[in-house]
């Protein structure tokens, strides 16, 4: 460990930096490690502007952040906090906030924006180039397109793409040449922003997979729970204000079904029984042919 060896002659600015980081770490209940490696400067500035009021973002060297975290964990007697360093990655930064980890994640997620894919990167999805004019005049771009396998030609004085084409599949590496072409076509297949590496709150460290909430899934679960409760209440006849009417209706429908099936006429089911017999008569009349029918039934 380089730091261990150089402990006694550590540069004063580093000590200051670690102290500043420690102050930040102690300032809030929720501490997040985020990854901002891939975020271009322009976007980063936009994001910082957006989140400024809700959280403090501080970049530093990993070694210094690690040291600050470990020292805070030790000073506060909180070994769980020290585990945050396990989530550190290159390009990490610290966020201190009072926003709960789930809200923090949502806020950061919503602040992401589309960006061009870089050469050498893995395509995050199938990248498709759409047919149509590129708006560019004839020139070397035409051969650049062709070189990466995009069918292009001059059309009405501009370079046009002849058909939709998936130029790289999800998971494949985007070549340097293709990246340049996609950028020129203003195709932004990646989303960049601050990715959560780990968030500490109250003794628990949350990772992205913990924090990524699928609201649809929750809605589905709520519906399933409600339906289950509704069915159980009705089927086991445990009346509640939400189900008592349905229970009454089920009992009535049971009685009606048995009355009709047995042709035992009651004041509530006379119509249904007579109607059923009539409908059957009409159905059979339909099979009987005109000669077998009286005037009323001929149609």
């Amino acid at each position, binding site marked *: 460990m380089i730091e261990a060896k150089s402990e006694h002659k550590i540069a004063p600015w580093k000590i200051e930096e670690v102290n500043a980081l420690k102050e930040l770490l102690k300032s809030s209940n929720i501490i997040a490690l985020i990854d901002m490696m891939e975020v271009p400067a322009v976007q980063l500035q936009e994001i910082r502007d957006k989140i400024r009021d809700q959280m403090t973002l501080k970049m530093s060297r990993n070694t210094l952040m690690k040291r600050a975290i470990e020292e805070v964990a030790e000073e506060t007697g909180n070994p769980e906090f020290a585990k945050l360093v396990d989530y550190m990655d290159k390009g990490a930064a610290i966020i201190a906030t009072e926003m709960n980890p789930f809200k923090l994640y949502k806020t950061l997620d919503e602040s992401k924006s589309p960006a061009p894919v870089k050469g050498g990167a893995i395509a995050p999805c199938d990248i498709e180039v759409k047919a149509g004019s590129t708006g560019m005049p004839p020139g070397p771009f035409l051969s650049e397109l062709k070189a990466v396998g995009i069918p292009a030609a001059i059309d009405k004085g501009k370079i046009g793409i002849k058909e939709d084409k998936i130029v790289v599949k999800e998971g494949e590496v985007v070549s340097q040449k293709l990246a340049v072409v996609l950028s020129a076509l203003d195709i932004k297949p990646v989303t960049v922003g601050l990715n959560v590496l780990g968030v500490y709150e109250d003794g628990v460290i949350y990772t992205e997979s913990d924090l990524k909430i699928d609201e649809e899934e929750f809605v589905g679960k709520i519906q399933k729970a409600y339906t289950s409760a509704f069915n159980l209440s009705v089927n086991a006849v445990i009346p509640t204000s939400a189900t008592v009417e349905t229970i009454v209706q089920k009992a009535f429908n049971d009685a009606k079904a048995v009355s009709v099936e047995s*042709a*035992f*006429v*009651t*004041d509530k089911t*006379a*119509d*249904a*029984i*007579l*109607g*059923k*017999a*009539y*409908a*059957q*008569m009409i159905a059979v009349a339909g099979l009987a042919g005109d000669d077998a029918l009286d005037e009323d039934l001929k149609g």
Partner: protein
Amino acid sequence: MEYIYAALLLNSAGKEITEDAVKAILVAGGVEANEARVKALVAALEGVDIAEAIEKAAIAPVAAAAPAA
């Protein structure tokens, strides 16, 4: 349903639905007429407007289906 068919046959023919009439039809059809069922049926149909009941049967499902549209 034999009992009901017998009653509707009478109604359709414009005859009164009496116990004797229902029984006579059942017997003619080779059905052993249960005295109590005949009695109960005739009593239950008293006061029922059969024409209206049938009409409702023909229309009811349609009416019910309407809000579904």
